[in-house]
């Protein structure tokens, strides 16, 4: 009963936050509402005892991805008038895409896999979600898991390789050399006789 109340409360906040993401006029507010949406969905996952997923969602998306998002959004000066200019023109296309997504979702969710009757499989007494997940991931699905991680690594390397530019005339410091500097290299102490007044 209490869980049901919590579920509806979190769901209401989640839907409200998700709507606010696309309706907020200030892009920074949009990003913050997205953070709120992630938080509430993490809370929903906690309700079905998927604590690993919930914490990782907060850790990765709220803690790192959204910080970078916020970083970028704060730096750029968004001109809302220019953004809204083509709204009416692209409305039909947008509606078409949304309708397609709704159709696909209803087909998937209406199928046998998401009947909504079973709910999450209850864990054995004293069992932990993280342990169960880890055991499956590193035994049964070890190859798909490792391949996915290699693909991600490849994506990181590719992203860096694609955006790395070697511009001529760039001033670069060599920290190793900087750290090796001794006073004798930079400082010259002159010995000179004192001037006498005469």
């Amino acid at each position, binding site marked *: 009963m209490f869980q049901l109340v919590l579920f509806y409360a979190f769901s209401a906040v989640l839907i409200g936050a998700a709507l606010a993401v696309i309706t907020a006029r*200030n892009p*920074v507010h949009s990003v*913050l509402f997205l*953070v709120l949406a992630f938080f509430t969905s993490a809370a929903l996952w906690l309700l079905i005892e998927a*604590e*690993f997923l919930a*914490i*990782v969602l*907060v*850790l990765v998306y*709220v*803690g*790192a991805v959204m*910080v*970078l998002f*916020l*970083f970028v959004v*704060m*730096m750029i000066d968004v001109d809302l008038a220019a953004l809204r200019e083509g709204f009416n023109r692209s409305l039909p296309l947008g509606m078409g895409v949304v309708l397609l997504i709704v159709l696909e979702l209803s087909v998937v969710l209406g199928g046998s896999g998401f009947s909504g009757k079973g709910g999450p499989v209850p864990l054995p007494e004293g069992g*932990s*979600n*993280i*342990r169960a997940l880890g055991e499956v991931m590193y035994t049964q699905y070890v190859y798909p898991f490792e391949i996915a991680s290699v693909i991600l690594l490849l994506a990181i390397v590719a992203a860096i390789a694609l955006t790395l530019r070697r511009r001529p005339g760039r001033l670069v*410091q060599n*920290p190793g050399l900087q750290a090796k500097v001794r006073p004798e290299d930079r400082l010259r102490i002159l010995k000179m006789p004192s001037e006498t007044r005469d």
Partner: protein
Amino acid sequence: MLEQAIAIWSQIPEALRTSVWIVLKIMAIILPLLGVVAYLTYAERKVIGYMQSRIGPSRVGYAGLLQPIADAAKLAFKEIVIPARANKVLFVLAPVLSFLPALVAWAVVPFADGMLLADVDAGLLFVLALTSFGVYGIILAGWASNSKYAFLGAMRAAAQMVSYELAMGFALIGVLMAANSLKLNDIVLAQQGGFWHWYFIPLFPLFMVYWISGVAETNRLPFDVVEGESEIVAGFHVEYGGMGFALFFLAEYANMTLISTLIATLFLGGWLSPFEHVPVLEQIPLLGQNGFHWLALKAAFFLFCFLWFRATFPRYRYDQIMRLGWKVFIPVTIVWLAVVGVFVHTGFGPWF
């Protein structure tokens, strides 16, 4: 009297009793923590004072002991000024967002065997998630203030805290590989058996990385470019006065306390006595026993180091901070994780 109280207590419904009990536990953690934070500011001024041949605060109360209270009273009664064209809601929300995670993370810290608020399965991840959330308060404060200096501070904070979080996370992976658990209580229990069983020996590089990243993560000197008095006035909190500023201040010191306690818990055996299984010393009443006093002592040492660093090191240059985080710490942790993997496989020493 006592019997009556017990009778009344047992008549309260079960659910209410649990929540009252939890609230009491939370108070038992937060109130002493605020006391520690208040007197940490006093200790900082005294310690740095003596390191610089001054005597520090000495006028309010005996040896200046009431100084933190006087400071708090002063800040509480100051006017809160909201700058022109600042984003009011976020301006007020930012200090709260920075203070909140600093308190919530204490829920999973074990103070003695089994003495913790919530024995979460993913305790270590929980701490990591919450400490990473602390950066929002700083970024939003800088942005909402509508001030160039504050914004520069916020940008620096975002870049610095995200970079050092990675190194911290990697260092924690080493600990959980060694302890085989994400529960902080189990991590401490896995280090039982005298100080040579503690993880700072096999995980020494990770210990150093975690320690230094912890200093960087709390934006303390020598990594305090976020505030950088000589460059950007006071960074993200330049526009804050009164309780807004006080909350940032409290958050910084609460985070220092949290990081110190976590280092003690993860690498130095938390509430374990170093003299476990040492023939003679084990018999000494307080020193040989495990308990909260050992955790407090270890955390106090790291807190002292925070103050010591501040008095000793000059501020890092910004690009050097980034280099240290990305090009030194992350490779070091990755290499050492491979070494730890070999350790775990071979069951090396008393640790694995």
